[in-house]
């Protein structure tokens, strides 16, 4: 069955649509299908960008009135499926809000959802790719029931490329009454001060793990990252331990990064972590244990104590000015 219609949920980012949204639009237009996008809050302002990356129509849910996006956006999509007919697939970015939208939509439409997708292909219908066991194996899957298939795709799975398309046609797609489910409201938004680049956008990522010994030593990671004009990340172990916030976590349950160089400090290389950084162009590892799995994928490994190597590295980088 040919793929004729794909909808892509595109999220407002800090400036314009989020990078992952543009990656999904770029991929969606490779199947020869009509691509429509769905967004919220200030849809008209994204029409040019959505069109440039391949969407002919941009459905705008409009202002959410402080509600978290999951419920109203899913509700609007359910209404669109009823009025426009079901597309072959709905692509959604893996993000805090994207996952909410996917879960709500799946339950409302009674359709299954495939998540953690890192690749898509057309084999008489969309075939999804999922990394398993730390990315050592790739699982390929497809939907067998009625459309639409709901597919949640991880960041950096595709490159975002402009198609030079004209602005998308903006069509209002209100959420309607969401009842009790829509009663969670944002009262205040806090933007955390960030000095360097974002974790997912940085050219250099310096990440710390259990080998740092204690929370106070994480400053070695943030200092090194700062000096390299990179971003600081973390393994799940130290996020679970409460040393650093969840937002810094790289791995299966955290962020996917693909920097020019990933510097893993005191990280053993659990499968959980590897899947989030194995796409890095270069990997540097510092670990006391010469048998740590991280060395199996490191381009450059130092068998040593991060508490000794990092202060020296910081001093050397400072000396370079």
């Amino acid at each position, binding site marked *: 069955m040919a793929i004729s219609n794909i909808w892509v949920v595109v999220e407002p980012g*800090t400036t314009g649509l989020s990078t992952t949204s543009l990656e999904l639009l770029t991929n969606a237009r490779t199947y020869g299908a009509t691509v429509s996008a769905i967004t919220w809050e200030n849809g008209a302002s994204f029409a040019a960008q959505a069109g440039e990356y391949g969407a002919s129509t941009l459905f705008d849910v409009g202002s959410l009135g402080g509600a*978290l996006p*999951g419920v109203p956006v899913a509700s609007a999509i359910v209404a669109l499926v009823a009025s426009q007919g079901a597309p072959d697939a709905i692509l959604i970015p893996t993000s*805090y809000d994207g*996952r*909410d939208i*996917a*879960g*709500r939509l*799946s*339950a*409302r439409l*009674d*359709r*299954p*959802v495939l*998540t*953690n997708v890192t690749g898509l292909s057309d084999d008489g219908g969309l075939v999804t790719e999922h*990394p398993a066991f730390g990315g050592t*194996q*790739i*699982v*390929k899957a497809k939907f*067998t029931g009625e459309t639409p298939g709901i597919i*949640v795709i991880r960041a950096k799975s595709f490159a975002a490329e402009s198609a030079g398309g004209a602005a998308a046609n903006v069509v209002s797609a209100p959420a309607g009454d969401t009842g*009790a*489910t829509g009663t*969670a*409201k944002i*009262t*205040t938004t*806090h*933007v*955390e001060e960030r000095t360097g680049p*974002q974790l997912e956008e940085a050219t250099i990522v310096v990440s710390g793990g259990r080998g740092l010994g204690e929370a106070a030593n994480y400053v070695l990671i943030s200092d090194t990252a700062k000096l390299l004009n990179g971003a600081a990340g973390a393994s799940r172990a130290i*996020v*679970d*331990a*409460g040393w650093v*916030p*969840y937002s810094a976590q790289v791995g299966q*349950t955290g962020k996917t990064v693909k920097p*020019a*160089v990933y510097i893993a400090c005191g990280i053993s290389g659990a499968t*959980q972590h590897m899947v989030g950084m194995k796409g890095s*162009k*270069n990997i540097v590892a510092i670990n006391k244990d*010469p048998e740590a799995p991280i*060395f199996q*994928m490191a*381009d450059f*490994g*130092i*068998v*040593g104590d991060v508490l*000794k*190597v990092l202060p020296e*590295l910081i001093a*050397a*980088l400072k000396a370079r000015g």
Partner: protein
Amino acid sequence: MNIVVCVKQIPDPAAPQSFDGSHNLNRSGKLILDEADTYGVEMALQLVDKAGSGEVTVVSMGSAADLAGVRNALAMGAAKAIMVSDDALRGTDALGTAKVLAEAIKRVNPDLVLCATESSDGYTGTTPVQVAELLGLPSITFAKSVTVDGSTVKVDRQTEAGYDEVTSPLPCLLTVTAGVVEPRYASFKGIMAAKSKPVEILSIGDLGLGAVTGPAGARQQIISVVAAESRAAGEKHVDEGNAAQEIITFLESIKVL
């Protein structure tokens, strides 16, 4: 205040993992309580404590042959457990799991449902929100901090840029991130007490569910499992006092410095 915590018994993540012949995760070994769930259990215990009344019920789905993980949650302080266990559940997807959990949760009629953001074995990460939708509840995911004030829950929710303060009336479903609270270790007394706490084992028939479960209910199919392209190990040097310089030289060679 009555709270349900959804928990999952998973194969030890530190042990080698594999698929069985039907591409299901091999769960034949020992199962443990997913560490990601311990934050929800701890949070629930603290909230009930603060409220001064009520209890924590853990709800799970999976094999009832080994209940060590569920007993662990009871040993931490949960009052009772509901375990939905049925051979027909093998191969059930996230939405089918949500349907099962939602039916089980209805029996408790809680003020709050807590879940991890995702399990540490399957990682689908949509089941909690699917449960909320099936129960007709609001949800707040990725909670970094949780307080209950009367009939309102206030949450700091992780965002890309920082965090949002979000409020919702109860009942509500939350997913909590790791590190939100420090999970207690079960005391000896707790472990002994857990042995006699009630664990209700239900079949899907008991819940009035049928076709939603198993591979047919999943409406998705694994086509193949192939080895991913692997990275080759590169140079490995033992630090002899010049590691910092060696790293700088490497960074220069790949032109990031």
